[in-house]
C-alpha cells in the first residue's frame, strides 16, 4: 500500500525522469505547467480556480493523468497537499489563484515549512506588466512567503518554466525537504513556446545538500555509544523523512538503547517495543523525561531540539554528551551544544554507526540502565481516569486502537489537547500513519490533511482526531470530502472549550477562563454533518462509545462522530513552559483540582 522504500529512496536523489510525451511540441505556459506536473509523476493536486489560473485550469481539463481535488478554501488545498505528502513521502502539489487565493495558502505553507514537508505550491499572479501596480487580486506572494518557503520562483519568461518547475520539485524533495512556491503570471500561462522538459536531476551549483555523513564523525559517534553507560536515542521526524526506521530499530536493539520519539517521529519506532519511551518533553511521560535527564549520552537523530522537547534552554540532559545527526547543518548546535556533530542523511549515518559498532564488536548496554528505565516506567506510568458517567478522551483513543488494530489506519490530528492525548495514547504502527502539525501547531490542519491522505490512499481508513475548536477552523472542507468521494472519518473531542488554552489558564492563570469556553455557543455538529451529506452521530455515554466508534469506522462515506468528553480533563503530565523537563508541574498523582492556584506540586 505504501510506496516501497526503494521507490522513495530513488525519488530523493540521483533522480532522472522519463521524457515527456509532449517533448518538442509548441505549448502555452499553462499547458507546460500541466505537462511538467505529469512529467514529475504527479497524480493528484489540490486547488481552487481563479482569474489568473483559468488558463492552467483550462489545460488541466485535457489531462488524463492528473486528478484534481477541488477544495472549498485555499488553506484546505495547502493542508491537503501537505497531508498527501506526509502520508506518501511524495511532494504534495497545490494550485491556487493570485491575491487572496495565494495568501490563503500562507498558513499551510508555514505549517509545511516548520515540519519539513516537501510541497510545490503553484500560485497565479497578475500579468508581468501589471506586477507592482496594485492590480486586482495582486499580492507579492513570493515576498510574503519568503521566510516560510525553502525557495521560491517568479516566472518571467515562458522559456524558463520547465526548468523552474523541475528545480522546484528537486529542491522541495532533496536535502531537508520543504515547500517551494512557483508564482505564475497570467501572461506567462498564455505565452507559447516549444516545450522541452529536463529529464536529468537539476544541477544547481549553489544547492548541494550533504547526504553522506563524515566517516570520522560516524566512527567517533560509535566510540561514544560504545563507552556510554546510560544512552538514550532521541529520534525525530528526520527518521521518517529519510525512511530510516529499520536502521533505527537495528541500532536500538543491537545496543539495547531506549528510544524516545518526538511528535514528528511518532510511528518511526514500534510503540510496543520494550525499548520504546514514547514522546519526550512538555507532555512526555515522566519516565521518558527522567531517562533523558539521567542519561550520559543523547543520540539525537534527525531532530532539532525543539523548545517543546528540551524545556528551558541549558537544562536539557545536563550531564549528557550529545551526538547530533541531521541533514540540516544549521540545526546542529542551534539549541544545544553538541559533542559529535554529523551532517547528512540520517539513514546512511545510522547504518554507518551500526556497521562500526559491529566491526568493533561493541557490547550492548548493561541491563542495569534499561532495567532502571523500566523501574521508572512502573513508578510513573502513563495513567488516566476512567469514568462510567462521562467519556474520558484517553479512552476514546484506546478504544480506537483496539477497534482498528487489524486495519491499515492513518490518523491525523488537529492541534490542542486531543493532539497530545493522541501523541500519548495512540498506537502508531508504522511511519507516515500519524500526521500532525508539530512545529507551527496549526489548528485547522488535521481535517484537510486527512483529505489529502485519503486522496493518496482511497482504500485506507483515514481518521482525523479533532477538537471542537480546531474542527471549526476548516470545517468547510466537509464539502470537499463529500464531492470527491473521500470517506474520511472525523472524531471530534467535544469539550465545549479551547481545551489546551483552558488548561494553561487553569494551571497558570488562576482559573481565569478568558475567551476559552464555548458553552453558550454550542454547535450542533451532527446537523452540520448532515448539512454536508455526511453520516454524523454523537455519543456521550461511555457505555455506547464502542458502538458509536464501530459505526463510524464501518460507515461507507465520510462520517463524523461528535464525542462529548469531560471538560475538566487535562493533558498530563505537563512541564510548565520555561521549566526543565524533569520539573513536572502537573502529574497524574497530583490531582489538578487540589493544586494551589497557579502553581504545581
Amino acid at each position, binding site marked *: 500500500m505504501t510506496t516501497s522504500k526503494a521507490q522513495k529512496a530513488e525519488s530523493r536523489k540521483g533522480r532522472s525522469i522519463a521524457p515527456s510525451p509532449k517533448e518538442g511540441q509548441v505549448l502555452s505556459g499553462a499547458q507546460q505547467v500541466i505537462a511538467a506536473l505529469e512529467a514529475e509523476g504527479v497524480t493528484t493536486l489540490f486547488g481552487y480556480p481563479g482569474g489568473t489560473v483559468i488558463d492552467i485550469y483550462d489545460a488541466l481539463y485535457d489531462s488524463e493523468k492528473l486528478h484534481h481535488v477541488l477544495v472549498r478554501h485555499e488553506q484546505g488545498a495547502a493542508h491537503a497537499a501537505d497531508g498527501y505528502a506526509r502520508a506518501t513521502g511524495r511532494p504534495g502539489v497545490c494550485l491556487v489563484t493570485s491575491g487572496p487565493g495565494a495568501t490563503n495558502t500562507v498558513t499551510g505553507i508555514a505549517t509545511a515549512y516548520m515540519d519539513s514537508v516537501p510541497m510545490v505550491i503553484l500560485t497565479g499572479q497578475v500579468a508581468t506588466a501589471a506586477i507592482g501596480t496594485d492590480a486586482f487580486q495582486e499580492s507579492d506572494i*513570493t515576498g510574503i512567503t519568503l*521566510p516560510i518557503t525553502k*525557495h521560491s520562483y*517568479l516566472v518571467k519568461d515562458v522559456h524558463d518554466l520547465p526548468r523552474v518547475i523541475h528545480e522546484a520539485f528537486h529542491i522541495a524533495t532533496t536535502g*531537508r525537504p520543504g515547500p517551494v512556491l512557483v508564482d505564475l503570471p497570467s501572461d506567462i500561462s498564455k505565452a507559447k513556446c516549444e516545450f522541452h522538459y529536463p529529464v536529468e536531476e537539476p544541477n544547481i551549483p*549553489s544547492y548541494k545538500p550533504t547526504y553522506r555523513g563524515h566517516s570520522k564523525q560516524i566512527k567517533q559517534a560509535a566510540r561514544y555509544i560504545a563507552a556510554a553507560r546510560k544512552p538514550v536515542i532521541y529520534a525525530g521526524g528526520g527518521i521518517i523523512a529519510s525512511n530510516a526506521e529499520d536502521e533505527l530499530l537495528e541500532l536500538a536493539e543491537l545496543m539495547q538503547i531506549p528510544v524516545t520519539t518526538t511528535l514528528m517521529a511518532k510511528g518511526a519506532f514500534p510503540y510496543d517495543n520494550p525499548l520504546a519511551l514514547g514522546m519526550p518533553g512538555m507532555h512526555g511521560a515522566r519516565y521518558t523525561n527522567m531517562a533523558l535527564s539521567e542519561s550520559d549520552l543523547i543520540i539525537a537523530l534527525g531532530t532539532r531540539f525543539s523548545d517543546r522537547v528540551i524545556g528551558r534552554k541549558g537544562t536539557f540532559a545536563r550531564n549528557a554528551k550529545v551526538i547530533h545527526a541531521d541533514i540540516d547543518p*544549521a540545526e546542529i*548546535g542551534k539549541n544545544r551544544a553538541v559533542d559529535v556533530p554529523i551532517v547528512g542523511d540520517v539513514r546512511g549515518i545510522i547504518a554507518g554507526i551500526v556497521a562500526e559498532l559491529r566491526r568493533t564488536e561493541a557490547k550492548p548496554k548493561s541491563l542495569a540502565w534499561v532495567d532502571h528505565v523500566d523501574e521508572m516506567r512502573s513508578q510513573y506510568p502513563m495513567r488516566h481516569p476512567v469514568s462510567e458517567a462521562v467519556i474520558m478522551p484517553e479512552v476514546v483513543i484506546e478504544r480506537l486502537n483496539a477497534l482498528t488494530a487489524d486495519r491499515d489506519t492513518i490518523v491525523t490530528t488537529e492541534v490542542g489537547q486531543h493532539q497530545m492525548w493522541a501523541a500519548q495514547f495512540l498506537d502508531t504502527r508504522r511511519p507516515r500513519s500519524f500526521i500532525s502539525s508539530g512545529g507551527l501547531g496549526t489548528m485547522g490542519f488535521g481535517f484537510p490533511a486527512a483529505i489529502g491522505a485519503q486522496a493518496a490512499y482511497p482504500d485506507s481508513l483515514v481518521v482525523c482526531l479533532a477538537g471542537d475548536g480546531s474542527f471549526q477552523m476548516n470545517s468547510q472542507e466537509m464539502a470537499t470530502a463529500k464531492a470527491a468521494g473521500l470517506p474520511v472519518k472525523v472524531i471530534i473531542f467535544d469539550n465545549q472549550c479551547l481545551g489546551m488554552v483552558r488548561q494553561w489558564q487553569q494551571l497558570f492563570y488562576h482559573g481565569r477562563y478568558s475567551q476559552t469556553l464555548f458553552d453558550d455557543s454550542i454547535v450542533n455538529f451532527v446537523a452540520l454533518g448532515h448539512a454536508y451529506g455526511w453520516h454524523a452521530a454523537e455519543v456521550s455515554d461511555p457505555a455506547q462509545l464502542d458502538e458509536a466508534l464501530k459505526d463510524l469506522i464501518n460507515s461507507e462515506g465520510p462520517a463524523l462522530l461528535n464525542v462529548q468528553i469531560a471538560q475538566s480533563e487535562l493533558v498530563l503530565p505537563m512541564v510548565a513552559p520555561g521549566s526543565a523537563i524533569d520539573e513536572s508541574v502537573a502529574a497524574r498523582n497530583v490531582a489538578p483540582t487540589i493544586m494551589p492556584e497557579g502553581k504545581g506540586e
Partner: protein
Amino acid sequence: MNWTLSVLVENKPGVLTRVTSLISRRGFNIESLAVGTTEDPTRSRITLVVDTDADSIEQITKQLHKLVDVYKITNLTEEDSIDRELVLFKVNAVPERRHEIIEVADVFRASIVDFGRTSLTIEATGTAEKMAALDDLLRSYGIKEIVRTGKISLSRGSHD
C-alpha cells in the same frame, strides 16, 4: 563584536532581499552593507557587517548557506583581509579655515570633491579605523552631512 561576512550570490532580482531579510528575521541588525557584481557578471558579492556574538554569527552563516541562491560565505573577520570604505564628509568651512581642513584631508589622502561658500565636501577611502579617525578630526569643524558606502572586503592574495 562586529563580524564581516563576504557572501557570494547569484546575481538576480530578490537575492539581496533573501539575504537581508533572513538576517533581520533571526533578530540581528546589519551594521553595514555593500553589494556589487563580481568578475563573473552572473554573481554578486555582498559584504555585510553584523554586530553579534560568535554563536549567532555561526547560526547566521549556516542559515545563509541554506539559501539556494548563495554560493559561498567567507567570514573575513578571522581572515587577513583588505577592508575599504568610502565616505563623503560635508564639513562647515568658512573661508579662513579652508586651508586647515584641506591639510587634514591631505594627511588622510582624501580629496576635496566640492567647494561651497561655507562648506567643503571631502571624499575619503580606507579602513573603518582610518575613517573613524578622520571623522573625529573633522567633527571639530562641524559636520553638515556624512554618507558612507558600507564596507567592502576581499581576502588577501595568500588565501587564494
